[in-house]
């Protein structure tokens, strides 16, 4: 989480309804490491919450 990445991937916030179509399109295009890794909410406790 904290280690510097060289040439890392894109981190993108997308509307929930688009998530699965986007992931399918990414995988179909060969960007196979793509994954949904979390969600956005109104502020609660801290800016980054891990569960």
């Amino acid at each position: 989480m904290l280690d510097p990445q060289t040439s890392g991937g894109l981190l993108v916030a997308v509307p929930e309804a688009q998530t699965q179509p986007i992931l399918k399109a990414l995988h179909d295009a060969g960007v196979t490491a793509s994954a949904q890794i979390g969600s956005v909410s109104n502020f609660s406790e801290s800016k980054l919450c891990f569960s």
Partner: protein
Amino acid sequence: MKKLLASLPENIDKNVLVGFDTSDDAGVYRLNDEQALVFTADFITPPVDDPYLFGQIAAANSLSDIYAMGGKPLTCLNLAGFPADKLDPEILTGIISGALQKITESGAVLLGGHTTDNDEPIFGLTVTGMVHPEKIWRNSGAQPGDQLILTKALGSGVLFNANLKKLVSVKALGECLDSLIVLNKTAAEVFANFEIHAATDITGFGFAGHALEMLSGPDLSFNITGCDSNHERRQEKCTNAESQPESIKLIGLWSKIIGVLLKAAPRHSRN
């Protein structure tokens, strides 16, 4: 750097669409209603010994900022530091050849560059790209309910450090390097077909640093629910390396640091 930039006078040219006053990945300058130029510069020290591979990684890293803004790269200039009195000039040729391969793959062209004498090799690019002024992807803009998509596995920093201590298998290192030289071009082209709210690329500040940049403005939280098998695999590789205890110790330490970082983000600092 934020403090330094905050001390500079603001850009007053109304064609500056993205300047140094935000934490975005590149600057954007509007040419007309249809076109804006995207500018970025980045260089790195070698994460690997192979010159060609170093050039490929450095170029993919530099080009990524254009993709993270929703742009297409057009032109590049080399930025190189090289100890000409210590290393064979063929090494520099290899670095630039690797970079040129990635530049060509991106559809951009290399126009020239600048090389200076330096104690250790450094290499990167300035990249100029094009974007539609109304289709710029910014760091900010995430909304409650949005989902977060990450397009490459994390862990290259841990892996490279572990590799210095010979804790990483050749296979794991090879898979990591294969990932690093992949341009974010295809991913960006896919995202361009959909509505997206915010984007960045994960580089020198690590996942947490870049995620916090996306959260610098709005009153939001990112809830990281974990990773699927692809994203966990690299961490497993590191912890499964020959000297497990030390790797695990390192990861444990980083987890503690993350805890400290989270506690260091009080409500009153949110804006």
